[in-house]
Structure formats: C-alpha cells, structure tokens
C-alpha cells in the first residue's frame, strides 16, 4: 500500500483535532499550552508532506519558522503562567474570568 501524501495529511488533521479538543476541555493552563503544541505539530506535518509532494523547499522553511515562533510563544506563555500561578497556586483557566461582560 503506497503511503501517499493523503495519509500524512490525515494524520496531521488528527493531531490537530486532538490538540484542539484538548485545548477546549482542559483547564490547567500548562496542559492547554501543550495542546497548542500538538496542533502546531499537526500543521508542521502537513507542511512537510506538501513540501515533498510539490517538490518545494518552501514548505520546510515554513516549518522552520513555525518552530521558532512556537518556541517564542511557549517562552512568553510560560512566563505569563508563572506570573499568574505564583500569586495564586491552583488557578485554572476558568478562574481567569475578570473580563466578564
């Protein structure tokens, strides 16, 4: 059975969906960040699959940048989480509802 691009795309889609679902149902901020990483990885996989299919190195370059940005995002996000959780250990995402309308 030939592994065509489609398989990789489906796998990427699955990872994306699982990550998204996790993001919506977990309350621990750290775990939510991890789910975001999952989603990004799913997308990365799709990019690489397309890079190979279309014979374009641009797809891999984009993945490179996604990696960098994900790293920066994690750094800042964790900084925020540290700042918040240091004051109030045990805070969950639901407790951060000060912007309630």
């Amino acid at each position: 059975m030939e592994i065509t691009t489609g398989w990789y795309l489906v796998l990427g889609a699955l990872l994306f969906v699982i990550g998204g679902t996790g993001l919506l149902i977990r309350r621990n901020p750290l775990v939510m960040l991890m789910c975001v990483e999952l989603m990004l990885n799913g997308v990365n996989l799709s990019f690489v699959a397309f890079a190979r299919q279309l014979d374009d190195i641009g797809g891999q370059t984009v993945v490179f940048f996604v990696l960098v940005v994900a790293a920066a995002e994690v750094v800042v996000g964790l900084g925020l989480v540290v700042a918040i959780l240091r004051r109030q250990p045990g805070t969950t995402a639901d407790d951060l509802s000060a912007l309630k309308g």
Partner: protein
Amino acid sequence: MVELVWLIPALPLLGFFLLLLIGHRVGEPRSGWIATIAAGASFLATFVVFMGLLGRDGHSGDRSYEFILFDWLPAGSLKVEAGFLVDPLSITMALFVTGVGTLIHLYSIGYMHGDPKYSKFFLYLNLFLFSMLMLVFGNNLVVTFLGWEGVGACSYFLISFWHQRESAATAGKKAFVTNRVGDWGFMIATFAIWSALGTVTYTEISNSPAMSAATGTAVSLLLFVAAAGKSAQLPLYVWLPDAMEGPTPVSAMVHAATMVTSGVYLLVRMNSVLTDDALLVIAVVGAATALFAALCAVAQHDIKKVLAYSTVSQLGYMFLAIGSGAYVAAIFHVITHAFFKALLFLGSGSVIHGMHDEQDMRKMGALRAVMPITAGTFIVGWLAIAGVPPFAGFWSKDEILLAAWEQKNIGPLLWFVGLVTALLTAYYMSRQVILVFFGQQKWEEDVHPHESPWTMTTPLCVLAGAAVVGGAINLPLVKDWLVLEHFLEPIFHHPHHFSSGTSTKIALAVISVVAGLIGISIAILSWLTRRIPTERLEPEFLENAMYVDATYARVVGGAGTSSFQKTADFDAAIVDGSVNGFGRVIMKFGQLIQPTQSGYMRNYAIGVAVGALVIVAVLAWGLLL
C-alpha cells in the same frame, strides 16, 4: 473708489472681533474708543465711496456699481452672490447710518460710564452697525436678509443688555418674537419672487417684467408684513415701546435712526414689485399707525416712552409716503427723522444721566437752567419734529402730506389723518419739553442734576445742526433745489411727480404749520400756564396704549400657551419617547447577548474553533462540489 465699498461693513466687523478678543482687557473707555473709531472710519469710507459714485459718469445708468465678493449659494439656476450694490439709495442710507452711528458711539462712551459690561455694549453696537450695513448694501434679497436677521439679533442683545432686570429680558424676547413674524413675511416674499421672476438680485428684479397682479399684490403685502415687523407698524409695533428697556443709545441708534428704517428701505428698494392695491393698503396702515401711536404718546409719563410712540408714529408717516407713491419723500423723512429723533433720544438720555436714572417726567421740570446744552439741543429737536419751518422736519413731513393729498383713492382723507397726527405730534412733544425743561421744579434737592460730559453733548450739538439745515437737501418749489430727488431718481421705475400746482402746495404747507402751532399752543396753555385743566388730557385708556398689549397677552397667553404646551408634550412623549425607546431596545438587545461574554477563555476558544470550522466547511463545500 467705489470698489472700497467692502470696507464699509468690514470696519465695524473688525471692531467687533477686536473687542471680542481684547475688549474685556482694555476696559473703559478704550473699548468705547475702539468701537467709535471703527464706526468713524466706516463713515469716512462711506464718504469716500459716495465721492467715487458721484465721480462716475452722471448718466443714471452708471450710477450703480455692483461689487461681488463671491458666489454664495450657487444651486441650480438660483444665483445668490455675496455682493454689494452701491447706488444712490444704498449710499444715502449708509451715509446717515454710519454718520449718526458714529455720533451715538461717541455718546455711549460717556453714557455707559461705570457699567460693568462696558466693552460688551460696544461689541454689540459694532456688530449691529455691520449688520445694518450688510442690509443696506446687499445686492440681493438674501444678503439683505442676512443683515435683517443680524440687526434683529443685535436688537435683542441690546434691549436685554441689562438682563438681570426681568422687564428688560422680557422686552428683548418680545422684540425678537415679533420681528420673527415679520421675518416670515420676508422669507415667503423672497421665495415667491424667486419662483415668479427667477432671480433675487435687485438689479435683475427691477429689470424683470411685472408679475401677475395677484402675485404682485401678495408679494407686496408679504414684504409689508416684514416691514411692519421691523419698522413697528400696526399690529406688530408692540415691541418698540418695550424696547425702551435698553440703554438710551440703543434706543437712539437702533430704534430711531437705523433698524426701524430698514422696513422703509426694503419697500423702497423693491418699488418695482409693489402693486397699486398693495400700496393703498400700505398707505392706510401707515396713516392709521401714525394716528394711533400719536394718541398713545399723548398720555405717557416716561420720557422715553413718549419718544418710542413718537417713533412709531413717524414711521407711520414714512409708510404713508410709500403708499402714496412718494418714495423720495419717505427716504427724505427717514433722513430727517434719523437726525431729530436720535437727537431727542440722546437728549433724553442726557437728562436721564443727569437725573441719575430718573425717567418719570413728573419728577422733572425746570431743568433748562441746570442742563443748558441738553435743553437747547432738545428744543431744536422739538421744533424739527413739530414741523416748524425752517427746521428739517417741516420739509420732509410736508412733502409726505402733499403726497398723501395726491393719493388717487382716498388722498384727502389720508391727508387729514396726517394733519391730525401732526397736531398731536406737536402737542405731545411740546408737553414733553415743558414737563422736562420748563415749569416748576419737581425734583428733590438731593438729586443734583448736572450737565453731561463733552462726549455726550458734542453729538447733541452736531445732530442739532443737522436737524436745522437738513431740510436743504430736498427743498421744494424750485427744481434745482430738489437735490435728493434727483440723486435718487435712477432707483425708481416710475418716478413720482407731484401734480398739484404751486398754490396748492403752499396752501397745504401753511395749513400744516398752523396745525403744528395749534398743537404747541394747547400744550403751552395746559402745561405751562395752566389755563386748561390737565386731568382730562391724559386718559388712562391712552396711557395704557389702548390695552393692545394686554389683549395680545390674553390671546397668546391663553389659547396660545395651551397649544404650545400640547406641542411640547407631543415632543416629549412621542419624539423623545421614540428616540429613547430606540436606545432602550438596543440596551435590551445588549443584555440578551451579555451571557456570551462569560469571561471564560475556553468559551471564547470554542467560539473561535467552531467559527473557523464553519468557514473552512463553507470553503470546502465549494471545492467538494
């Protein structure tokens, strides 16, 4: 040099802005001098433009010059420019408006001394002068209307200048509201002229073919409504006596010499439009007003109220002249009236100032020894208004009476009314002079009346001089002496020519002089020498101006007020209600949506996710199909 016409209104406007910015800081009397210099410069500019106009080719066609600043309202085929029309009529009006205006500015420097709102007074005066000049120089009905509204507004400001006094504030409102009725007439007339003739510019109107008789009469009567509002004719005169609440210079300037003559100016300017039927109505109303006001003046005790009713009466004469077709006579009387009425008002102001704000004539008397200059000039004014030759008033009033006699429908009746009015005028003015300056002293010793400063007596003397020689501009009987008539000739479509013979003219003149002397004698006999008992000469009916004001108050206050109240309620309930209701609906809607703003991040994430999903699905739908 006629191109400098724009300077004439610009200088008082400049004075206005200058005073607006720094008037409060320079205080008195410098702000007064700023205003006076602005007015004086305007007068000089007027004189220069006048010379320029005279210097142009003497043919009547060239005696008018239009100076267009810019296209004000270009809308379809309507062409309204911001333009000035320099022609004999406007320059004549401007000459005495700026001349008398400058004198009154000078007078006010002394009169308003000590008033906390000193600079504001001069600010308003300059603004008024600007508006009046725009009115006079406008080359179309709309620019004139700009000035018309402007003088109305300034009149309101100046009448209620001492607004802490309830009566002054009310008087200002009354003036404004009554004027507004006249403004309505002006506007409708303008619209009608535009729709009938397709233009609102004066030069084009006078060159247009005549309108149909019905339209023409309607337009003429509407213009007369406007004039009646501004120039205080029946039934819209009621604001003028109350306008005496304003400071005396205001009464002199606005309500004697300039603003009230703008109605006369308007009708003279639009003379090509006025139909014979309308002219008859104008003549009748003018004569009736003259008589009515003279009767009211007979029984007044306030020194200024007498002069106020006198103004209404003299304005009635002017409209009588217009109605009889003698436009030149009307303008002539405007000029002479400006001189002697301003003189009389300023003189009364001097008396009030000297008597420390006492205005009741029953508390004056024998003031001529204490205030000689005021008394002397006031007497000159009295003689002028009473129609004693050779003072100015005689010549102009006489020309009007002659024109009334020649009016083709009811000439002799109009002439008779005018004659009776002249008698009454002589009577009540003499009464005033006697009560104030002659007779027994009725004031307490501690009042210390004194003569006024030079800033106040100088204008009095100048005006007195003008009242003496002013008649010279239009002496009858010899064609060359009719200077004013020749000067104004190009304005009129159908120049008026007196048809009576010389003997008739002389006879009528003699009769009117005799009437004047009779009036003076009655006054002397009753008030000075006490031969005639005076109790019956001041009936309460006349003292209360025939209860016209009270009637108006009952009508407007009763039925009027309740209908106003209903309109206000409608506005509050329905209009405001719907606007507020709309706001309430929006708020309700907001409250409905509020639960979506839960503050929980995950809810928002759901929103983003599901939204993205929907969008992708929609896009994919296109691809899949």
